[in-house]
């Protein structure tokens, strides 16, 4: 009898588009996203009769960089195979991929485990293959439903990275994916911001039961969501005494659920055989020429050493290439002076605000962030005002309005701390106490919460400009006066 509370076991198959200039087997440009359908095509990627694939060496170099960074072994000889199946987006009715002789095998990627330490996720293999085209569904139920095919994507180089079933929760799966993305970006072989550049199939089981394959996951968040849904679904089935069927399910991103595939799809026999139009790959010796850049783990260590970042901040900041670069630019003028404030303001506050807005980091100039940090460091504004300035900055940049400098925002909104000018604060305190007799009474009854409440009220009245230390001192003085 399977245990509904049994261990979750997850393995991933991750497909990433390699960010080469041209396609895997022809010279067509891969930069198709802003152009019309079927504009980046030629006889080869259209699979026209008689056209033959010619391997883009750069794609193999990129894949080998990844293999090296992930500690995989390059096989002495690998080969391309044909995966045969009918689908209208598949120009040749077979996909050129790698089957029993992949480019690389073994290897691992270290992630943060659920227990907090580092954990090695073993990899099975990495292979190279071509992306199929894309179907675009037109019309709706009432008006003639039909599909059009766009072959711009056909032939874009992909790597498929297959992990061992070493992850133990949906969270770990997401961390694996984030770490993988960071590694690929550090290697400059992948652009995660390109739509559809990553696709994931996940195998998930509860220990003692059959595994289920979840296909069609296209986002980083999606992996965690899809797997969390599956864990609940599978546990519930086991609890009700039902058996988990070994099956393929599709993730429906919009609804956050998985759905059983049609049984026909599970009967695929891909009839693999070696691609006769390409010669076997003997590229192991290329490894010598591949020099790896600094990778996320090394950079994380450096951030802790060089900038004094905490482990968590270092992890967050180096978890995305652009973020790490951004941080280093922000603090470049005064590493020791700016790093402590900058790391928390970027890793915690800025990231939070960007996520809330679903906004890209690229819209924020590092120089503006440096100015903000400098204002905070000089004590010109309070932390609360800092958040307000940041929000104004982000709003302006997101809406494409004229972007003000933090200094200009502070000036315009009159947010500078009212240090020394106790008059305004004293007035605000008196007003706050007078307006809230209940709080005064609570204070008299010895309830400390009342002070916090009044601090909040005063902050509101001074619009956050009051220095918190000074405010506290003056408020307690005022309360004590009224006690008598």
């Amino acid at each position, binding site marked *: 009898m399977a245990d509904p509370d049994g261990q979750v076991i997850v393995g991933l198959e991750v497909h990433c588009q390699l960010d080469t200039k041209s396609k895997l087997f022809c010279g067509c440009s891969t930069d198709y996203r802003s152009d019309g359908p079927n504009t980046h095509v030629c*006889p080869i990627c259209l699979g026209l009769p*008689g056209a*033959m694939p*010619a391997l883009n060496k750069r794609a193999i170099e990129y894949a080998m960089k990844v293999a090296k960074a992930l500690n995989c072994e390059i096989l002495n000889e690998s080969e391309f195979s044909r995966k045969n199946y009918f*689908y209208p987006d598949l*120009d040749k009715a077979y996909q050129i991929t790698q089957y029993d002789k992949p480019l690389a095998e073994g290897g691992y990627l270290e992630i943060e485990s659920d227990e907090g330490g580092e954990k090695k996720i073993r990899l099975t293999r990495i292979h190279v293959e071509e992306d199929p085209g894309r179907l675009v569904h037109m019309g709706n139920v009432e008006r003639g439903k039909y599909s059009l095919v766009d072959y711009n994507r056909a032939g874009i180089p992909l790597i498929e990275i297959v992990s061992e079933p070493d992850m133990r929760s949906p969270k770990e799966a997401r961390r694996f994916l984030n770490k993988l993305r960071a590694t690929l970006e550090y290697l400059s072989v992948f652009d995660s911001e390109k739509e559809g550049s990553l696709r994931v199939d996940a195998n998930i089981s509860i220990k003692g039961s059959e595994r289920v394959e979840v296909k069609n996951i296209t986002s980083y968040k999606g992996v965690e969501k899809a797997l969390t849904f599956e864990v609940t679904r599978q546990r519930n089935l086991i609890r009700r005494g039902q058996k988990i069927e070994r099956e393929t399910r599709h993730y429906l991103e919009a609804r956050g659920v998985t759905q059983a595939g049609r049984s026909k799809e599970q009967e695929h*026999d891909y009839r*693999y055989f070696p691609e*006769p139009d390409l010669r076997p790959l003997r590229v192991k010796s290329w490894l010598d020429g591949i020099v790896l850049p600094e990778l996320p783990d090394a950079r994380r260590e450096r951030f802790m050493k060089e900038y004094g970042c905490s482990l968590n901040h270092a992890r967050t900041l180096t978890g995305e290439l652009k973020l790490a670069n951004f941080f280093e630019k922000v603090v470049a003028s005064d590493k020791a002076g700016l790093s402590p404030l900058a790391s928390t303001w970027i890793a915690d506050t800025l990231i939070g605000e960007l996520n809330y807005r679903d906004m890209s980091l690229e819209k924020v100039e590092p120089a503006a962030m440096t100015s903000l940090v400098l204002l905070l460091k000089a004590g010109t504004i309070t932390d609360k005002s800092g958040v307000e300035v940041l929000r104004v900055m982000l709003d302006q940049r997101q809406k494409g309005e004229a972007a003000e400098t933090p200094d200009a925002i502070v000036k315009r909104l009159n947010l500078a701390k009212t240090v020394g000018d106790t008059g305004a604060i004293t007035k605000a305190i008196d007003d706050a106490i007078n307006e809230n007799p209940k709080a005064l009474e609570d204070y008299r009854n010895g309830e400390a919460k009342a002070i916090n409440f009044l601090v909040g009220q005063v902050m509101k009245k001074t619009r956050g400009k009051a220095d918190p230390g000074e405010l506290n001192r003056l408020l307690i003085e005022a309360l004590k006066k009224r006690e008598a």
Partner: protein
Amino acid sequence: MSGEISFSPNDKYNAFLTTCKKAPHGSGKLAGVAVAIKDNISTKDIETTCASKILKGYVPPYNAHVIDLLKAEGAAIVGKTNMDEFGMGTTTENSGFGPTLNPCDTTRVPGGSSGGSAAAIAGGMVTMALGSDTGGSIRCPAAFCGIVGLKPSYGRVSRYGLIAYSNSLEQIGPMGKTVADVSKLMGVIAGYDRHDSTSRDKPYNHTPNAEIKGLKIGIPQEFFGEGVNPQVADVVRKAIGRLEELGATTVPCSIPSMEYALAAYYVTCTCEASSNLARFDGVRYGPAPDWRKSWHDAYQEVRSEAFGTEVRRRIMLGTFALSSGYYGRYYSKAQVARENVRADFNRIFADVDVIAGPTMPTVAFKLKEKSDPLSMYLADILTVPANLAGIPSISVPCGTSEGMPVGLQIMGRMFEDERVVDVAYAYEQEVN
């Protein structure tokens, strides 16, 4: 030098599927020479059908590499020749657009699958043509029609633009009235092409040389054994005798792997074909299916209607042989058998310079004579070994039997196409 030639042949043999009434040409080694092209070689702006209804109306937007090379040397592409659908056949009867007749006897087949190209030459409509040879498709019609045809070493001529039937076996090759024509055409089409990863940097710059004194010729017993018509064998033996008179010596030899050659050949080519032809699904090629049906049903409808019987048979055989659980029993076994054929040839070529024998076991069949597929497949027994091994092989006319031409086949070491051309040339010069 450049200009245009008019081409309006009286095509009594149904050799052409398309003719170009006004064929432009440039200057160069083939300036103004009319060249016919087998209809599985892509020609920009000229319909290319592989003699299949499923490609009716398909006009390639690009040229095969060999076509670019021909044009660069001034050749005039005058038309596209008939063939067995997708190259699958030995008689050109499997064309979706009617059979080609043998100009030597119009009650007989011209051989196949490059039967249209052979008939165009034998019928005097052109002096040279391109064919393709997967298991004998250049040499068989050359033998049956009494012309010269060369299957080059695998990799010597770019396949880019050749509509694939069996990629690992086939080569585009020259066909002509004379060995000199074939050699000249080979000189234009051979060489490395970056678009074909299996092509090799082995250009052909050769003028045929009839001097063969001291040449050692291997005579495999299998080429004169069971299944080979005794009269045809006699004609070929006499021809080899002429080569001996010219100073060559003969050495008996044996190719034991031939026992499995035909099986290895048919497994390999049907497997590859089943994949190559899968793209013809009615979405992009062929008559539009009934789209109210599901994809798979629509595909099935188009493919069962537009493909001929032999093509469907081979697709099904290949699909079966590649299926899960059968791959090891068929495809990978066939590759082992191929290695054995290669090994046999290597062993023999350590002692001899070329191997000679009949091209075909018989003369040209009567139309509709070969009705069951198996007896048709058996006719390829003498030509498929060269494709399995990748080695060059030429067929040169060497007399007649029953009044029909007989072909002498000369096979050489890998990339020694020049040598088989020389031997064929020596024979041709001797008898003329």
